């Protein structure tokens, strides 16, 4: 039973070549379910003024159908339920050792396409005809644009995942990008009625993701453990804040500052790296840990009167380019960060596959052999440090401008650890994994953990257990966070989407462990 469960969680018990590919499949399939259920229950999340598509269907169910809209909503509801249940049903079937045939996939493809079209039709009719002719005497409440968008996206995603299953499994990176990118681009439009907090959260997500992508170059690609990565983030953020705030009365535009931040941070990466990269493993980790402590301390002590001391630098400029007023709505930050993130991802993806990328892999595998094949080990490591640091400098430039204040506390050890957790949790050395890790961990840190108190209060009144409301979850934040990490590492030690090298390492570690057990070492 335990073995079965483990095999189920790992999705590919025999360690087949496409186990990461099937992970992408599962992630996308359950995302489709998630979007459909959110589209259904949207009012639950954003307040009573918006009705989800499902709400209308529920209302329609209790009274008799009186308009064309109600019939359409009935059909939609059936498609939604089937597609929502699909991944769970499929997982259950796999658990029992069976699968659905290709016919089921085809049916779900048609359901998905029909869902997209029908949702669009309902929305158009609703806009053109209005509530009365569409639903008759029924009062379904306002159908919100966000609900329509989410529902359509959920249907489209389901159509993609089931309709092109071999492609999704075979070309996982491309499939993941295709599925997620439009969502990213249209997010501000989907929620144009919703408050800005969502875009703020997405902005901090993007910054954390950039940090994790940069750290992944150092830890994942080159195999150098860096425990003080926040230092480079701080250097980038402070450098850019100095050039775009009243503190020195310099006001450079953001698009110059992102390059400046990247350049300065990578310079410091090289400065720290040059004398220390001879060190290996644990020793390097300690040095970087020290560096990570020094930098915020220097900022606190207002070094050279540059950093503004414990209060940091405030009043950082927010750009205003024509109709793009960054201070008016976070959506401009959101789109800029999305653009920058995509550029960074494409760049890093290519670097990983370049000469330098191969040199990193060789270095990680065997330093002596790498040197013997003509790889300059010091330069190659230094490059990893510099590139990793430059990405965090870039993130720092955006961070300062987004929150308009930088203080030494923003770059504490816990930031380094959070970023490292994202990399490890997502999958060391795998760009797609790191992105997913960033999405999940920022979701947990910025949304789930802060909201636990409110949820427990709601839950306690629903199930009538008053004790639940008295638990102060916010004081257990780090315990819950830590437990989640431990559980994750036990279940999927290679991260959510392990890189190829990591997967092989884990497999061979399993072999040598069982070998040790055979020899009685256990």
């Amino acid at each position: 039973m335990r073995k079965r469960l483990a095999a189920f969680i790992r999705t590919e018990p025999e360690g087949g070549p496409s186990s990461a590919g099937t992970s992408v499949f599962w992630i996308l399939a359950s995302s489709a379910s998630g979007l459909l259920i959110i589209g259904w229950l949207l009012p639950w999340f954003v307040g009573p003024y918006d009705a989800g598509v499902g709400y209308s269907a529920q209302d329609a169910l209790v009274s008799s159908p009186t308009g064309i809209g109600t019939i359409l909503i009935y059909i939609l509801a059936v498609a939604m339920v089937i597609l929502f249940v699909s991944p769970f049903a499929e997982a259950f079937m796999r658990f029992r050792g069976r699968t659905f045939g290709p016919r089921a996939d085809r049916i779900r493809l048609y359901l998905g396409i029909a869902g997209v079209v029908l949702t669009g039709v309902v929305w158009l009719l609703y806009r053109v005809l209005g509530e009365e002719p569409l639903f008759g005497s029924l009062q379904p409440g306002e159908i919100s644009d966000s609900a329509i968008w989410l529902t359509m996206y959920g249907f489209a995603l389901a159509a993609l995942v089931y309709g092109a299953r071999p492609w999704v499994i075979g070309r996982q990176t491309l499939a993941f990008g295709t599925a997620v990118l439009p969502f990213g681009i249209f997010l501000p439009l989907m929620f144009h009625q919703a408050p800005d907090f969502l875009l703020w959260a997405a902005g901090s997500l993007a910054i954390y993701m950039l940090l994790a992508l940069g750290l992944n170059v150092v830890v994942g690609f080159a195999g150098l453990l860096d425990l003080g990565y926040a230092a480079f983030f701080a250097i980038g953020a402070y450098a850019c804040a100095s050039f775009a705030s009243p503190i020195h009365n310099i006001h450079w535009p953001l698009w110059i500052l992102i390059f400046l931040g990247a350049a300065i941070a990578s310079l410091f990466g090289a400065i720290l790296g040059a004398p220390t990269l001879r060190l290996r493993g644990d020793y390097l980790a300690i040095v970087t840990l020290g560096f990570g402590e020094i930098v915020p301390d220097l900022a606190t002590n207002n070094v050279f009167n540059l950093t503004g001391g414990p209060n940091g630098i405030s009043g950082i400029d927010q750009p205003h380019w024509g109709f793009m007023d960054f201070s008016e709505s976070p959506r401009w930050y959101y789109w800029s960060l999305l653009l920058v993130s995509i550029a960074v991802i494409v760049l890093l993806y290519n670097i990983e596959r370049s000469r330098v990328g191969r040199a990193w892999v060789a270095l990680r595998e065997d330093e002596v052999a790498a040197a013997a094949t003509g790889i300059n080990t010091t330069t190659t490591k230094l490059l990893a440090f510099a590139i990793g640091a430059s990405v965090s400098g870039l993130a720092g430039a955006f961070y300062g401008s987004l929150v308009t204040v930088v203080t030494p506390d923003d770059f504490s050890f816990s930031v380094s650890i959070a970023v490292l957790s994202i990399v490890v949790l997502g999958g060391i050395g795998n760009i797609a994994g790191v992105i997913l890790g960033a999405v999940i961990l920022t979701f947990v840190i910025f949304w789930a953990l802060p909201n636990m108190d409110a949820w427990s209060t709601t839950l306690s009144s629903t199930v009538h257990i008053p004790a639940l409301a008295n638990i102060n979850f916010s004081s257990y934040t780090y315990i819950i966070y830590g437990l989640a990490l431990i559980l994750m590492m036990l279940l999927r030690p290679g991260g959510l989407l392990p890189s190829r090298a990591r997967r092989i390492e884990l497999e061979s570690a399993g072999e040598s462990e069982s070998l040790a057990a055979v020899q009685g070492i256990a």
Partner: protein
Amino acid sequence: MSENGQPVVAIAADTTTVTDKVIDLRAIDVYYGRVQALIGVSLEVRQGEIVALIGSNGAGKTTTLRTISGLISPRKGQVLLFGKAIQGVGAAQIARLGVGHAPEGRRLFARMTVRENLDMGAYSRGDRAGIRTDLERVYTLFPRLRERDSQLAGSLSGGEQQMVAIGRALMSAPKVLLLDEPSLGLAPILVDAIFEVIREINAKGTTILLIEQNALLALKTAVRGYVLENGAVALAGPSEELIASPDIQRAYLGM
């Protein structure tokens, strides 16, 4: 110096010029911390030769090769490659100068495929056409590797791993190839095959310095040999002479 067709030079020091010495170690002392591993070792390898380095475990054979390829630097003495001193140049640069090293214990990149390992060998080269020709050459020398092309190096058998190690060293188009115990852990039939390939590589013009436990095989393959004992050169000379020497026969050939 022509790359190809150089006949195997017989050992006649007075007839050769200075630049004919591909490797020239002059009285080098090498230490690991406080332990002295090499004591005044002098050794030379000339263009087109196969030279064997034999000796018991811990005699300093591997240390000698590591010194030549720059993985350790000598505390005293000089290392000359193609007549130029290379002190403090660094392993990467030495590899670029044309020294291919198939290190002890193969040291493959276990989690890369065979093909990726071979590609890593050509890391410091820019000529794509040349790389493709050399890859083809390696695959012709070791047809087995073509079959295992996309298999992970760590999952190969010992013999195949040795083929990859030699192949990887060849991919840098080395002028001189350092082979550290190519027969280690191989079945006798494979040992013969590997040595056949070593002769073939040499016939195409690559100079070879070879470490080998199997002293008889090594000396039969090489034109000259050096015998290391406790970090110093105990004997040196043409292979036939070494094979004929009673000391060598007793100590290394088991006759």
